[in-house]
């Protein structure tokens, strides 16, 4: 209930901002006076409404505008009732403001009552459980599968494996029998005994390409170190290797 601010003669004064708009106030006045809504214009309710408007300064602009709107309608109705009736001014199509206000008030009253009935049904004492975390998880279901698909996968896998097995069959990588260092030692050993020898003698028939390369690299190394000297008589002919120093003795 709105707070009673002040008691004045035959009616109470209520603070405007206790009301949800002008219709609320008007309806309240009607109920206080225990009259029918349609009788508001033959009662002193409209005067009471207008007298409340004196408090307008204290409420915000938006609310004030709503109150002034209804107040102006009330004043308009009052003025019309005081003027002598002039039939020619009545425009047929336009609804009588008095009728309109009464209708508006009646409709508002209906919903106000409905709101009160709803209030009796309002229940804020129920609590609801949070959904279980598993609830919205989707179930993964396998699409229909065919045996053909299974066998395709299987045979192509077997093919793949066959190819892999083949790739795995080791390509024999034969370890070099001698490294460059070993060849150097070997040549040095031979030359220290034979003093002079043919380059071709250094190779055996089963020598691999890399062994030949290693032997040649060893030879170059020995030349650089001046352990041996060489002499080639013809192009692409044999190379005669001589231990350094031995030549002069001969």
């Amino acid at each position: 209930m709105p707070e009673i601010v002040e008691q004045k003669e035959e009616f109470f004064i209520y603070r405007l901002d206790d009301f949800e708009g002008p219709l609320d106030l008007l309806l309240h006045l009607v109920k206080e006076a225990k009259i029918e809504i349609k009788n508001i214009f033959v009662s002193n309710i409209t005067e009471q409404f207008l007298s409340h408007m004196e408090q307008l300064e204290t409420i915000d602009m938006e609310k004030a505008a709503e109150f002034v709107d209804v107040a102006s309608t009330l004043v308009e109705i009052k003025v019309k009732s005081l003027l002598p009736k002039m039939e020619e001014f009545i425009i047929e199509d336009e609804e009588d403001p008095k009728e309109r206000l009464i209708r508006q008030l009646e409709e508002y009253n209906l919903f106000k009552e409905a709101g009160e009935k709803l209030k009796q049904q309002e229940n804020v004492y129920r609590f609801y459980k949070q959904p279980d975390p598993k609830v919205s998880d989707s179930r993964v279901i396998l699409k229909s599968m065919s045996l053909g698909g299974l066998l395709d996968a299987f045979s192509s896998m077997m093919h793949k494996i066959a190819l892999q097995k083949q790739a795995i069959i080791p390509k024999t990588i034969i370890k070099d029998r001698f490294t460059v260092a070993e060849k150097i030692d070997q040549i040095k050993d031979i030359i220290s005994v034979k003093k002079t020898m043919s380059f071709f003698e250094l190779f055996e028939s089963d020598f691999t390409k890399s062994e030949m390369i290693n032997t040649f690299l060893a030879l170059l190394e020995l030349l650089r170190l001046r352990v041996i000297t060489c002499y080639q008589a013809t192009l692409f002919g044999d190379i005669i290797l001589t231990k350094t120093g031995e030549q002069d003795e001969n």
Partner: protein
Amino acid sequence: MKIERLCAIIEAILFLAGEPVKQGDIMSKLNISDKQMKEAIDLIEKNHSGASGIHLLKFNNKLQFSTNPDVADEVSAVLNPIKEKELSRACLETLAIIAYKQPITRLEVEQIRGVNSEYTFSVLSQHGLIEVVGRKDVIGKPMLFGTTDEFLKRFELSSLEDLPDYEKLLERISIIENPQDHMLYKFDDDFELPEEEEIPDFLKDEIENSPS
């Protein structure tokens, strides 16, 4: 399927879901007939109402479990759940207008209430009691509002038809809003509009013979 098993399944579903579950979903996914479903719901309701700690709510063809409101204080003492405050008069008024007249724009509500309703709309939206249900096909395409399942639950309604004096109120509103349509009649409170199909006998011939 045995009715007891169906009850157990539905109980388990509602317990896990927490949220409202459509009856239709349960029926279609489990291949349950309307009759079986109704029977199961009746049985579950019998066990989950009154003094039971868990209550069955039925609204808008959905089912949900909630705690028994009678034990709210004790439950709060132990678990401290979030408690909703009761709605203000202004909110209830606005909510009533939206409930009975949905779908409705904010402007239309404001015309009935004679007051700006932006704040009450935002409160009701925040509480999940109203929601935008479409746009009105007029200039500016204003949003149309309607009530939610949350609204039905909070006001213990199983559907909008359950609103207090639903039919009667809608009829009275229609009379107030369109007096010209009703001028010829003198209304009593329990007057009912005739169905459209009903044409008085003495008029039938005239109507049928008149050029359309």
